[in-house]
């Protein structure tokens, strides 16, 4: 039986981060992952992450994955792929299946970082080919380069449903609608808004009545539900789609911990069956730790910090560092993690209906119901101001842990302050030089540059654009409102693509002046 100081199960963001920390402390570490490639969920995520610099904010998920792999390599971590861990015993014996072979390993310490599995809902026709998980859609389009479908209905409006809807559009699929049984959009408003403005309708308090088709999906019917989850007759809507994508949440894959005899509990706020553990992942079994989604569904950013914590705690458990060092390292990680667990979507706020921002402004009802802030609400937020000349308009209206926009502006036009969840504001008397960095750095694609003072009665609006084909200057089309509906004629004035923008192109369109605060997307019609 091969022996390691530390055996880690799962090479996602948490497992890799744990491995890096532990190896840096001099431990002999092995990481097992069932996949052909390491990285867990990260390699499917192509959007820029939220958070702040220390959380690798504004970097795209798959790039963070590459960074972690490099760091793991440098630290001397051994990553074993195509290796499924099928057993974990109390004495920290780990049973690994590689192809037809089964091997036994022993860890002086073990970290379980197995992540989560997708939840399913059933409805008539749910087993038809064409009904797929959101993870499957991501895997097909972002890993294998194959379209999951041509016309897709998304079930689920949490961050996964919203992000995957946008990704589907990016690879050329049409998203017919986003449907959710809940009365409010579950994910970040900025994620919803960037999908809504492309013209995708949201149906909240709706769910699937039936998936249609003989051999595969050819259509779907949805209907509104009342507060008892009963369909309301007469509210049925039909869509011709070839794919129904299901994004109704994740559940921790905690079976190994249970098998080993860790004390478990059912915690809906953490997503289901989770090990009882302290904030650093120490389970009820000495030397067995949990990190990442398996210990409670959160995000990659927090999974990385939890992983690092578990790695350090394991190092102390085996005597590679002393208590003093442990304390000081955990203190700074505590702070980093705390920063992420703030705001309206923080774990402690799950399920609560929050009506006002920390600043005391009403949360947009329209954003929660339709996926976009209504025209008559937008001016309430501190990022939306008027000025002569070009200036940023920041349509970020919920308290989320994110601040790359503040770092991006070297002219000091944008401020969030020390509290990372505060709404970004446009600083009085600051002068915007139209560099575009804020637009490109905003993880939520919520920043626009507006010039309402053009001489000829027109205005220009610069917006983030991550689609192909990229329109050229001179292209005529339509300006779409926040709701994705045509509001005016528009012409592309310029298209800027720079390395520093990291694949977010800046499209500047000219619109009639009265649409300066309304047109938020461009479409060639």
């Amino acid at each position, binding site marked *: 039986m091969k022996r390691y100081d530390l055996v880690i199960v799962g090479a996602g963001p948490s497992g890799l981060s744990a491995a890096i920390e532990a190896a840096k402390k001099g431990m002999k570490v092995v990481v097992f992952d069932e996949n052909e490639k390491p990285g867990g969920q990260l390699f499917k995520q192509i959007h820029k992450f939220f958070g702040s610099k220390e959380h690798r904010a504004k970097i795209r998920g798959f790039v963070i994955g590459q960074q972690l792999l490099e760091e793991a390599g440098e630290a001397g971590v051994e990553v074993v792929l195509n290796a499924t861990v099928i057993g974990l015993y109390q004495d920290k014996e780990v049973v690994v299946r590689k192809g037809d072979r089964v091997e036994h390993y022993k860890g002086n310490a073990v970290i379980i970082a197995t992540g989560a599995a997708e939840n399913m809902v059933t409805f008539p026709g749910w087993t038809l080919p064409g009904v797929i998980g959101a993870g499957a859609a991501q895997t097909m389009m972002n890993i294998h380069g194959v379209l999951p479908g041509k016309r897709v209905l998304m079930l689920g409006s949490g961050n996964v449903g919203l992000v995957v809807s946008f990704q589907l559009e990016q690879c050329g699929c049409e998203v017919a609608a986003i449907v959710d049984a809940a009365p409010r959009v579950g994910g970040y408003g900025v994620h919803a808004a960037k999908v809504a403005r492309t013209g995708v309708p949201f149906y909240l308090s709706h769910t699937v009545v039936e998936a249609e088709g003989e051999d*595969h999906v050819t259509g779907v019917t949805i209907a509104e539900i009342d507060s008892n989850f009963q369909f309301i007759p007469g509210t049925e809507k039909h869509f011709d789609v070839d794919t129904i994508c299901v994004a109704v949440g994740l559940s921790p894959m905690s079976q190994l911990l249970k098998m080993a005899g860790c004390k478990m509990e059912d915690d809906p706020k953490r997503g289901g069956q989770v090990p009882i553990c302290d904030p650093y992942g120490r389970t009820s079994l000495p030397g067995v730790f949990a990190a990442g989604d398996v210990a409670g569904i959160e995000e990659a950013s927090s999974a990385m910090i939890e992983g690092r914590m578990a790695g350090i705690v394991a190092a102390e458990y085996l005597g590679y560092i002393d208590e003093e060092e442990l304390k000081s390292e955990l203190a700074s990680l505590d702070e980093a993690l705390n920063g992420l667990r703030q705001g309206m979507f923080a774990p402690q706020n799950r399920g609560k209906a929050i009506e006002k921002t920390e600043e005391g402004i009403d949360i947009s009802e329209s954003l929660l119901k339709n996926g976009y802030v209504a025209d008559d609400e937008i001016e309430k937020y501190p990022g939306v101001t008027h000025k002569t000349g070009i200036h940023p308009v920041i349509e970020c209206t919920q308290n989320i842990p994110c601040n790359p926009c503040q770092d991006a502006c070297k002219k000091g036009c944008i401020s969030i302050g020390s509290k990372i969840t505060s709404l970004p504001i446009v600083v009085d008397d600051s002068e915007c030089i139209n560099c575009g960095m804020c637009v490109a750095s905003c993880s939520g694609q919520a920043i626009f540059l507006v010039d309402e003072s053009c001489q000829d009665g027109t205005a220009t609006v610069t917006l983030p654009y991550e689609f192909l084909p990229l329109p050229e200057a001179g292209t005529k089309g339509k300006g779409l409102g926040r709701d994705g509906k045509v509001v005016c004629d528009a012409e592309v004035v310029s298209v800027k693509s720079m390395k520093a923008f990291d694949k977010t192109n800046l499209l500047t369109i000219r619109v009639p002046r009265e649409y300066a605060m309304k047109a938020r997307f461009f479409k060639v019609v």
Partner: protein
Amino acid sequence: MSERIKEHPILGVQEKGKSVKFTFDGKELEGYEGEPIAAALKANGVMVHRYTRKEHKPRGIFCAIGRCTDCVMVVNGVPNVRTCITPLVEGMEVCTQYGVSAKPFEEQ
């Protein structure tokens, strides 16, 4: 192969292995070496991977990461191969799985 993403706004042109031929229910198709069989089938518009044993219901890709077993097919004569995580190899014979066999139910 219109269901392939030729150029992606973020990922660019994704690199593929060499183009190989394989068969699906005896029909010759093309795919890329090393990609999952399921990806090659999807790119060719194939939706149904198998029919269930008892109720003869169609199944196709569902999880795409080897967990649900909806995508299993008969590959080179071996049934129950998870096509979403099995790499494509030149000359592979991939067949729709009926129950646990490559023979349609009427012929079983």
